[in-house]
């Protein structure tokens, strides 16, 4: 029943969306004929536009004549497409492997199905209205409906994201963020949550948490968008998603796994990763993909992107090394899971900071990222006793919060001139942003989780949990032995 409803909903949406096939482009065609009426730019102005492209700044706006190069700039657009592809790679197959390797063999496919389902679901929502609610002009808390069905989101025009990248590449780049964020939550609730409940929870969560939060932090009229919104109430910094991506998913994951309850046998039976090899492959992919995530967030192949690229590398490598060496010191053996966890932690903590800090700042972030989340996963979790199966909270919740703080501490105009404008009171703004994010995530997740529990139910039956979700929920097994 539910499934049929879901299905019909999609069809309906598509029926609604299809007319825009015509209208959207008509509008843009009109627009371009209007501008074509203006006079020509001078040679100097045309030269300035070309230089603006190289320098990734705005075209000369002091003249009415249209720019001769009004569309995307090839170098920046090339990098932005590459970056978007890299971020998708983080989820599929990156995160699916990282998480899939850490669960027991009988649940490997369920984790993958969750990542795949989220990718599909979020894409449809994003096209429908998610992109519009996030980046359409609106209120400080949420955007508007200007871009529903990707209306006006074309490849030949720029400006929605930045000066030299196609509007639709920007929309897809941001889509890949909207996909990975809820997929991160999967780590906390692995091995016991109903598939239908996952899909329903995520749908509601996108509307209640992700779209508003991403708007607040990254839209030019958002509540906490320090660099772009001069009227922002909270002038915070978040380069690539410390609050939006990691804190929101991490804190929501904590609440959801508390409401969901522990896995059967948790704390009694060993539940070792069924394949550290898969987990390590996923880690490598996450690291590489993260270059798209962080350096792509510069929205250009410029010096800021280069800085984010650099700091990301340093923090990831150092985070991994420090975590494993901490294990070496405290537990006698450096483990592959330690390296992998530390690399991801380093990447998480540097995410909000990467475009604002220097290489030495990144090294400090790497060291801290290798120690604090290590302690969170080792001590805090056992002490509090929740069953965050794959440590989404320990790594992303704790790491994301840490990142927001470290950004406040280490952001410097020397790494990025934009920091100048928000430097005053930055730490306080960061703390406020942290509070808003945690508050929104915790409250919304609690309500949604209880709602889902009351309707389709959150957990699979004991029998299904024992047999494994792969067989029971997806009718497949991860691996088949030789025969014949």
């Amino acid at each position, binding site marked *: 029943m539910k499934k049929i409803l879901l299905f019909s909903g999609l069809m309906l949406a598509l029926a609604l969306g299809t007319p825009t096939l015509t209208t959207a482009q008509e509008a843009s065609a009109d627009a371009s004929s209007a501008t074509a009426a203006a006079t020509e730019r001078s040679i100097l102005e045309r030269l300035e536009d070309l230089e603006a492209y190289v320098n990734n700044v705005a075209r000369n706006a002091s003249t009415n004549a249209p720019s001769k190069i009004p569309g995307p700039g090839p170098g920046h657009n090339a990098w932005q497409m590459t970056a978007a592809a890299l971020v998708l790679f983080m989820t599929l197959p990156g995160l699916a492997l990282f998480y899939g390797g850490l669960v027991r063999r009988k649940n490997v496919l369920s984790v993958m199905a969750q990542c795949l389902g989220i990718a599909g679901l979020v894409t449809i929502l994003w096209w429908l209205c998610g992109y519009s609610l996030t980046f359409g002009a609106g209120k400080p808390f949420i955007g508007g409906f200007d871009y529903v069905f990707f209306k006006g989101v074309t490849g030949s025009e720029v400006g929605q994201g930045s000066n030299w990248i196609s509007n639709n590449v920007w929309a897809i780049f941001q889509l890949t963020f909207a996909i990975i964020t809820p997929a991160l939550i999967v780590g906390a609730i692995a091995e016991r949550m109903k598939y239908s409940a996952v899909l329903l929870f995520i749908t509601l969560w996108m509307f209640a948490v992700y779209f508003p939060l991403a708007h607040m932090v990254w839209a030019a009229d958002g509540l906490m968008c320090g660099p772009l919104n001069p009227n922002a109430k909270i002038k915070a910094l978040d380069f690539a998603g410390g609050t939006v991506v990691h804190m929101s998913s991490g804190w929501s994951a904590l609440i959801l796994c508390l409401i969901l309850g522990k896995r059967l046998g948790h704390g009694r039976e060993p539940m070792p990763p069924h394949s550290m090899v898969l987990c390590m492959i996923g880690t490598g992919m996450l690291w590489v993909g993260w270059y798209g995530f962080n350096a792509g967030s510069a929205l250009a192949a410029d010096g800021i992107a280069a800085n984010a690229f650099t700091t990301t590398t340093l923090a990831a490598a150092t985070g991994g090394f420090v975590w494993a060496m901490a294990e070496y010191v405290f537990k006698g053996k450096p483990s592959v*899971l330690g390296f992998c966890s530390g690399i991801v932690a380093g990447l998480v903590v540097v995410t909000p900071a990467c475009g604002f800090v220097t290489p030495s700042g990144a090294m400090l972030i790497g060291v801290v990222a290798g120690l604090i989340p290590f302690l969170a996963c080792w001590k805090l979790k056992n002490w509090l006793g929740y069953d965050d199966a794959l440590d989404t909270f320990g790594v992303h919740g704790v790491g994301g919060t840490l990142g927001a703080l470290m950004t406040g501490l280490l952001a410097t105009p020397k790494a990025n001139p934009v920091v100048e404008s928000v430097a005053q009171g930055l730490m306080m703004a960061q703390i406020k942003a942290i509070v808003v994010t945690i508050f929104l995530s915790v409250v919304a997740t609690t309500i949604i989780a209880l709602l889902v529990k009351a309707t389709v139910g959150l957990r699979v039956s004991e029998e299904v949990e024992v047999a494994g979700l792969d067989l029971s929920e997806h009718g497949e097994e991860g691996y088949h032995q030789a025969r014949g």
Partner: protein
Amino acid sequence: MKKIEAIIKPFKLEEVKDALAEIGIEGMTVSEVKGFGRQKGHTEIYRGSEYTVDFLPKIKIEIVLPDARTDAAVAAIIKSARTGKIGDGKVFVSTIEQAVRIRTEERNEQAI
């Protein structure tokens, strides 16, 4: 006929096989098993959780053979499988009443 079941350390398999071949025994069936005994397991650590793996990988060899060759075979196994360290394993002997070679339907001592 007798059946010998020997539980040995995995890396000793080639040596045991060779030792048996030397005394003319060339049929056997081998499987991977996990053993639990005096030899203690090891600890694995995964982030927060630490736990002991009690079951150690072992190899089980099964050989069906005429009564007369049993002692020689047991001796060969013991000699070749021994390292002198705990966990070297066991040899068990029991009785088999019938044996048939599927391909030819030969029975009993002809079959093995």
